[in-house]
């Protein structure tokens, strides 16, 4: 029983971070119907930003998270302008391949520079014990930041002019253009925010788990699963989906081997795609 509680708590904390990684993916999908296959490498770049800043410049990891966010925003806008802009109205295959080519470029250069050896940031914080459950400080802080980021995104999308532009373009791009919204700029900003959420997620993961340049791939696949659970294009659904996945990862090891987790995840993923393609909380098609 104690083991189950501890496992659940860990899974739940991780779930918040999965949630913001998936939010980045699902925001881009919702606004421009593009599945960003470069999501994983961008997450990995977030990890490395914090790692490099900490190791070589001694910048504290949580300041590094902030810088990683800025870096992610700029990177996303650049990727949009170079690779995505030209294929935004082309068939799906084109945008999938365009973002995948960005994936190959980042991974190719990243492996050449950093190799694939594992890295970690040696960060020790306090830890709290609640009965049988011990919560590590790094994980608690990371999930708190994830919640803050979610709140900030919500505020941005629903309370600011730029955010309303984004929602308008997501809703109907042609109509948004008719009322004078600069849609290309809005799309670039959305892609930037999507990438920013990915680098933040990566940066937070780097504060408590080891990683290498290929580590983003795992979280990209998890983001797909979460995005589909919560409904692609639905940022709040992504957070809930992240928590569900986190809980699942906490529960499954209590009754079978951990290696079965991905089997269950991906079977669930395919089934939800088939049965409820709009996500658990989405309406009927």
């Amino acid at each position, binding site marked *: 029983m104690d083991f189950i509680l501890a496992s659940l708590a860990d899974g739940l904390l991780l779930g918040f971070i999965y949630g913001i990684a998936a939010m980045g993916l699902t925001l881009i999908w919702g606004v421009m119907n593009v599945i960003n296959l470069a999501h994983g490498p961008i997450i990995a770049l977030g990890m490395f930003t914090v790692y490099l800043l900490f190791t070589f410049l001694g910048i504290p990891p949580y300041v590094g998270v902030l810088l990683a966010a800025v870096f992610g925003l700029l990177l996303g806008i650049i990727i949009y302008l170079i690779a995505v802009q030209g294929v935004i109205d082309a068939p799906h*295959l084109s945008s999938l391949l365009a973002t995948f080519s960005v994936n190959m470029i980042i991974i190719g250069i990243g492996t050449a520079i950093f190799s694939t050896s594992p890295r970690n940031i040696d960060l020790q914080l306090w830890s709290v014990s609640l009965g049988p459950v011990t919560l590590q400080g790094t994980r608690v802080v990371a999930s708190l930041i994830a919640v803050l980021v979610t709140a900030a995104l919500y505020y941005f999308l629903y309370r600011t002019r730029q955010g309303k532009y984004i929602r308008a373009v997501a809703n109907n791009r042609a109509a948004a253009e008719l009322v004078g919204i600069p849609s290309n700029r809005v799309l670039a900003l959305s892609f930037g925010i999507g990438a920013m959420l990915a680098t933040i997620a990566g940066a937070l993961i780097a504060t408590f788990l080891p990683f290498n340049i290929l580590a983003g791939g795992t979280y990209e696949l998890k983001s797909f699963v979460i995005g589909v659970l919560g409904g692609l294009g639905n940022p709040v659904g992504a957070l809930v989906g992240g928590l569900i996945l986190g809980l699942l990862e906490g529960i499954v090891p209590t009754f079978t081997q951990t290696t079965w987790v991905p089997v269950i995840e991906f079977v669930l993923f395919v089934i939800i795609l088939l049965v409820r393609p709009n996500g658990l909380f989405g309406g009927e098609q």
Partner: protein
Amino acid sequence: MNTLKNYAGLLTSLVVVVLIALAPIFSGNAASREVVFTILRAIVLASSLNILLGYTGYVSFGHIVFFGFGGYVGFYLITAQGQSLWVAMLAGGLVSGLLAYLLGKAILRLRGAYFALATIGVNEAVRAFINNFEPFGGPTGMTMNFSVYQQYGGAMQALEMTFYIMLVLTILVVILSYVVRTSKFGLGLLAIREDEDAAEVMGVVAPDAKTWAFVLSAIFPGMVGALFFFKNGSVEPLDAFPLHTSIEMIVMVMLGGQGTVLGPILGAAGYQRMRGLLVTSTIFKNIQLAVSGGLLLLIVLFVPAGIIGWARQRWPKWRGVLQ
């Protein structure tokens, strides 16, 4: 003469395949035979994928699952059941076709990006499952006893034999690819690619046609999987289901020209050749992936129809030959 002209497209494609295979046959050089073996493997995979991707317009991001699954079943039959390579290859093709049939019934209902995502999910689910499946060796996979090669006249002969089997498979795939494209069934697929709803109105039974296209595109990868891992001597989950190779297959099809018979052949040969050069060059060795990625981006942005698609637009008179 007229019949020859009718088959000009098929002949061009077959001639290209044979030309690719000629060098190692005549020189007897084992190293160049290995290079051509990987090129032929790429041609089989790309041409098979093209039936689904190029003709039907459905993007499978996890097509390598058929290669890996067929390979695993074939390998299991040879090592654990003592079957011959022929039985293994047939079984590999059959189980892959069957898997495609069952999957097709389920996931081909999804369209566009949802289908692409589902295929990634299927590939990962199968890999994760085999990782846990003890009869197939779990995460460490299986290895082949060297004595298995004795019944084919020793390892050297077996190695040479696999090359010729691969050549035959490649020729069969090219013929299949051509027959599908020129048949009524193939026209139905092309109609689905252009507009699935309109195709249904015109009398194409889209769910059946899509499923059979999926099955046809899965059989040869399964056979090649059995052959490849027989030659390889070992099989493990990471080798059998690399998501990356799935996407490389798409790149090959795109590079040569999706929806054509000759395109995937040229695309596969060109991509493999380029990759070989990059991997062995001193400057590009470490960033060969980035160079391939850059090339892919250029194709997607500027030549979306691929080499053959571009050539067909440029020289309409030659369309009969460039199919």
